[in-house]
């Protein structure tokens, strides 16, 4: 029986409350840090086998062609979707738990943002290192492409790193904003969200069609390039983060 009275430790500070929330979201590192790399490893091995088969059965000239095609490899894309799911799960199930444990919605949102930024840096670093190896080994010895796919731009490694960080942040924060809409209004929140998104896209398409501005959009995107597009995604991610927080501020966890 523990009857000794424990001396109160240092008063919980704002920082420590934010960190407590961050710790809650990554309490099971298997989900956020281990499993994604394992899946990535399996995908890599499968791809490597395919590259090997191609290299074995085709002549050297064909490989060059194949490598060009592989620039469009979506093998690494699952990671971004996975992280979006991580964000959705965290807001949907960790948020009610954190509130029960005396957290404010603000501290939870900040803790989650901290985790999203941290995980984005971790995975972007991993992708960049693997991309550098991929280049140095001439496609893992087989002309394969996975971590230097066209979606990360054709610039040097640090541009790829920034593109990767930007993409991850986008998926994390859009995922948390979606989950916040769900926590706030349940399924109705998502219906409204997607209805508004649909209306916005149709409206934008209509404006572009009526004003004959599709070529302008196309050339604009081409001019921006991947890095430019991702740079534009940063404010979008930031807005998604703010929307997520605004939704959670008036949200009541329900079971």
């Amino acid at each position, binding site marked *: 029986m*523990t009857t000794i009275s*424990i001396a109160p430790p240092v008063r919980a500070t704002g920082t420590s409350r934010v960190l*407590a929330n961050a710790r809650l979201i990554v309490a099971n590192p298997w989900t956020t840090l281990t499993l994604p790399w394992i899946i990535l490893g399996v995908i890599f091995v499968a791809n490597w086998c395919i590259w090997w088969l191609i290299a074995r059965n085709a002549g050297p000239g064909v490989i060059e062609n194949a490598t060009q095609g592989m620039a469009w490899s979506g093998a690494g894309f699952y990671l971004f979707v996975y992280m979006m799911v991580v964000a959705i799960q965290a807001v949907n*199930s960790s948020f009610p738990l*954190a509130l029960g444990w*005396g957290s404010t919605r603000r501290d939870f949102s900040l803790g989650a943002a901290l985790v999203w930024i941290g995980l984005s840096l971790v995975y972007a670093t991993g992708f960049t290192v693997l991309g550098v190896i991929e280049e140095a080994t001439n496609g893992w010895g087989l002309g394969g492409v996975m971590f230097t796919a066209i979606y990360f731009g054709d610039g040097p490694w640090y541009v790829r790193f920034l593109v990767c960080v930007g993409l991850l942040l986008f998926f994390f924060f859009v995922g948390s904003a979606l989950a916040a809409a769900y926590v706030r209004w349940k399924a109705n929140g998502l219906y409204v969200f997607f209805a508004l998104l649909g209306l916005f896209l149709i409206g934008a398409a209509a404006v572009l069609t009526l004003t004959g501005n599709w070529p302008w959009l196309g050339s604009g995107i081409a001019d921006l390039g991947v890095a430019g597009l991702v740079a534009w995604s940063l404010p979008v991610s930031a807005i998604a983060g703010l929307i997520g927080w605004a939704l959670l501020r*008036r949200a009541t966890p329900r079971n």
Partner: protein
Amino acid sequence: MTSTATAPPSTAAIQARGLSRHYGRVRAVDDVSFAIPTGTICGLLGRNGAGKSTVMQLVTGQEFPSSGEVLLDGEHPVENARVLSRVAFIKESQKYPDDFRPKHVLAAAPSFFEHWDADFAARLVDEFRLPVNTRIKKLSRGQLSSIGVIVGLAARAPITLLDEPYLGLDAVARQLFYDTLLADYAAHPRTILLSTHLIDEVADLLEHVLVIDDGRIIIDAAADDLRGRAMTVVGREGEVEAFVRGRTVLHRDRLGSIASVTVDDVTAADRAAATAAGLELGAVSLQQLIVRSTTVDDSTGTAA
């Protein structure tokens, strides 16, 4: 009304003033006022859907009042880290992340609670036989409840709210919970608000009782006052009816010419008078009192 500078220094850990929460036409909580003094164990009793959980969500700032206000240590709880960091709110229906095992809950919880006692938590894990390495999804109802109970006790939060925390726990585990709660409360006084419908089981724990029915507080009294408050008078129908005339009748039973009537607000003088009139007196348990008070009055039938 929203000023945080409360004029009179109040000793109430939890105070509600005209607190309401309406969902459209549903008055989940309707103009409720009460004060729970610091350092008491208070029971929040009532039927399912009476408004117990909504009151607790309002108290912890999870739900927003439609009108009125609730104060924790004199401050509004909504988004108020200063008071919320002293609060633990454990729900029976608590969801946990799908990929969690109990050990992840127990690893994440301590950083939320200043007074967390890790040794105490470890001891409770043993006593409740909680398998810490099993996936939460695979736990039984009772094991799931025990996670909440362990966190709620080991957190030692100065304001602890337990919303039906033991659903699915077997009788042994429930008794263990009551005993541990009482012992730990004695060693580490704090304010505990416990909602339950297993009234007789917790009756001895409670110092104060709030009974909520249909969104309204119908009883707000010290548990000791409630224990002797009602009595059942048994005797010949005519004599019993003569005695109970003008009193608050909670329940009536008849068997032939014998009547058994439960009356509220009984004084010592009433008891003496009833005995003198040759009537038999029966004790009314807290549970009976509350069942009688919260059942739609039917003077003949046996209430739920």
